[in-house]
C-alpha cells in the first residue's frame, strides 16, 4: 500500500520507453524503467557478504 513512489517523466521519454518496452519483450513500460535503473544500481552497490550468502543457500535440496 505504501510501497511505491511516483516519479514524473517527460511525455516524449515515456513514449520512447513504451515503444521500446514492447519490442524488447517487457510486460510494461514500468518493467523496462525498473530494469534500466536496476542495471545502473548494480554497478554502484556493494556485493553481498559471502557468509550471508552461504547461510541463505544452506538447505537447498538440489546441492550439497
Amino acid at each position, binding site marked *: 500500500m505504501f510501497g511505491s513512489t511516483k516519479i514524473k517523466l517527460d511525455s516524449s521519454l515515456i513514449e520512447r520507453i513504451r515503444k521500446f518496452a514492447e519490442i524488447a*519483450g*517487457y510486460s510494461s513500460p514500468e518493467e523496462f524503467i525498473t530494469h534500466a535503473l536496476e542495471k545502473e544500481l548494480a554497478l554502484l552497490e556493494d556485493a553481498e557478504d*559471502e557468509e*550471508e550468502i552461504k547461510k*541463505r543457500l*544452506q538447505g*537447498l535440496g538440489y*546441492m550439497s
Partner: protein
Amino acid sequence: MTRLPRPHRRDGALITAAALVLLAGSPDTADAYIGPGAGFAVLGSFAVIFVTMLLAGVSILAWPFRTVWRMIRHRRTSKPLVKRAIFIGFDGQDAAITERMMAEGKLPNYSKLAEQGCYRKLRTTYPSITPVAWSSFSTGTNPGRHNIFDFLDRDPRTYLPRLSSTHIGSVDRFLKLGKLRIPLKKPDIRLLRKSKPWWTILGEHNIWSTVIRVPITFPPDEFYGAQLGAMCIPDLLGTQGTFMLFTTRPETESFQEGGMRLPLSRNGSAGSFEATVKGPENAFYEGNPPMELPLHIEVDRAKAAATVAVNGSRVDLQLGELSDWVKLEFKAIAGMKVAGLTRMVLTEAGEHVSLYMSPINIEPGKPAMPISHPSYYSSYLEKKIGPYATLGLAEDTWALNEKVTDDGTFWTQTQDVDDERERMLDIALDRLRSGALVTVFDATDRVNHMYWRYTEDGHPAAAGIDDPGYADAIEQQYIRNDGIVGRVLDKINDDDVLFVLSDHGCTSFRRGVNLNAWLLEEGYLALKDGADPSEPWLQSVDWARTRAYAVGLVGIFLNVKGREAHGVVEPGDEANAVKAEIAGKLKGLVDADTGDVAINEAFDTDALYRGPYKGNAPDLLMGYNHGYRISWDCASGVVAGGVFEDNVKAWSGDHIVDPRLVPGIMLCNHDVESDDPHIVDMAPTVLSLFGIRPPGHMDGSTLLDKESL
C-alpha cells in the same frame, strides 16, 4: 449463455474480517524480518497489531469504493468464456510414468479426464527445473523475459552464487540505545522474477485469482486475489532449510550444508538431557547473536519413548514417529518474539539419545516475513486448517540424505504437506464462485527425487535402501494424485475449465558430472598456486587465467571482460568462439567408466532465449542424458575430484537434464487442438478464457478458444 462473472468480493472481505478477529487476540509477536545479517522492524508488537488492524479496517471500509473504481477503470471489453479456470499442479509428475500407469488402469481419474477432454505431454522449459518452469507458467514467457534461469544466479562481481528468485537485503542503519540497537528500517525483500504473472493481469480486469504455493512467489505478488507464497520462502533462520540433530553422540563430521549437529547433555538422571535450540540471529544486538530456546528431554529407554519440553510445550514422542507441529517462540527483546513451527522425531533412545528437529518454518499465523497476499491470508489459512508448512522446499530432503531421518519419516513429511495443501485447495475451491484458482502440490517431485533408487536395479544409491517397503513409493504418490484429481472432478461444473499439469518429469540420477573439474582438465579453468581445489564456491580459482566456470545447477558461464569482475574473454567474437569450442567438446561427452553418453548437448543460451534478461543466463546450458546430472560437488563450486562420480545419496532421481527427456503432463476437461503444448501456453490460455487478449510480450499460445469450449 455466457455471463459476466461478478467480481469475487466474498473472499476478500471475509478474509479481511477474519483477520480482524484473529488479530484482536494476537499475542505479542514482532512483525519481524529474520535471516542472516538482517534486522527487525522498528515497530513493537502492540504497534504492529494496531497498524495491521487499522489497515484491515480501512480495507473493509474502502472496499466498496475500490470495487467501483476497479470496475470503472477495468471495464471488460469482451466476455469471459468460463466461470472458473482451475489449475492443479503436481510438481515433477513424469509423463512416461503417468502414461504407463494410465495404461495399466492405475489412474482412473486421469483416464476419465483424458477421455472427457485430453491428455498431452507438456513441453517444459530450458532448463527443466522448477523455478524456471513455474515462472514460465506464471508469466507465459521464456526465461529471457522472466529472468529465472536456475535456482541460483551468480554475482559477476564475486562469482559467488545467490538465490535467483529473491533478494533479501540487510539493515545497515540502527539507533543505538545502550546495548540495544534498533533497526531503523526493514530490509529490502524483492521478488526477482520479472514480467507479469497472469493473475496480476486478470486482477487488472477485475477477475479474482487464488494462487496457492506456485513456486517463485516470495515475496508474494500484489494483485486482486489471494496468494500463499512458495519457493523460496526461507526457514526462521533465513536459510532454505536447516534441520537440527540434538545428540549425545560425539561430533565426528559436520553435515553438508543441510543441518546442524548440536550437543545433548546429560542433566541429572540417566534419562534426562538438555540442549539449546538455535533460533534466528538477533539483529537487536551487536554481532547478531542467535536467539535461543532451552530444550529438555526425558527419555524412557524401556518404552522407546521420550517427552520433550520446549517453549512451554510438552511433546510426547515414540521412537521413529514424527510429532505434530510444535510452536517455538524466540524472544528478540522484551515484548517482542519471533514465531516458528517445527516437527520432531526421537531417532535414538538407547546407549545414545538423538532428537531430530525439522527446519523451523515461519509460523503462518504470525509470519515474520511476507509470505502471503494479503498479508493475513496465511493467518486465515492457519485458522481454517491448523498449522502448516511454509518453507519453500518444505520436505526435509537433506535430513534423509544425511541419514538423520529415514524413508518413513520423509514419506510422512511429504504426505502431510500434501494433506495440508489439499485442505487449502478445498477451501479455495469451495469459496470460488468465479475467477481462477491454481494450487501446486510438491510431494510428487520430492518422492521422485528421494525414492527413485528403489526403482532401478544397480542404482548406486540403492545400496542405502533401508526399507524395501518403499519400492512402490513413486507409484503410490501418483495414485494419491489421481485421488486428488477425482475429488476435484466431483466439485467442478460444466462451465469450469480444469487443467492438471506438471512442470517437468523425472529420470534417474546415477552419476554426477563435475563441470569445473572438466573445465580444469580441458584448460578453460585454472587454479591459484597452492590453492586447495576442494574448497567450495570456486575459491581456489585463478580468475586471471580462467575462461569458463560453472556455478549453479544448469550450466557454464564464460569469464567475460566487462561482465565478470575479473573477466579475461573478450566479448563478441572471442566469447562466441570459446563458447562454440566448449559446446562442441561437451556434445556427446562419454563417461569413460560406463561408456554412456553423459551430455547430449550443450545449448547456446543466446540462441535459446529472447528477451531483456537473457544476458543473465549461463552462456551454455547443459542437456544431460538420462542418469546424469551436475555433481553435488560442482553445484557447491568444488573443483577437485574426477569429472564423473557415482551418486550414492538418497536423492537419486532428478530432472535437471536435457529438457526433451523429461516433459511434464497436461490434462484438461476440454480437448485442445495443439498436439505439442508448452508450459508457456498456460498463461495466454487462462487470459483468453476470461476474454482477455494475451499481451504481445507473452511467448505462449492460447490452447482453448470459444470454438473449442
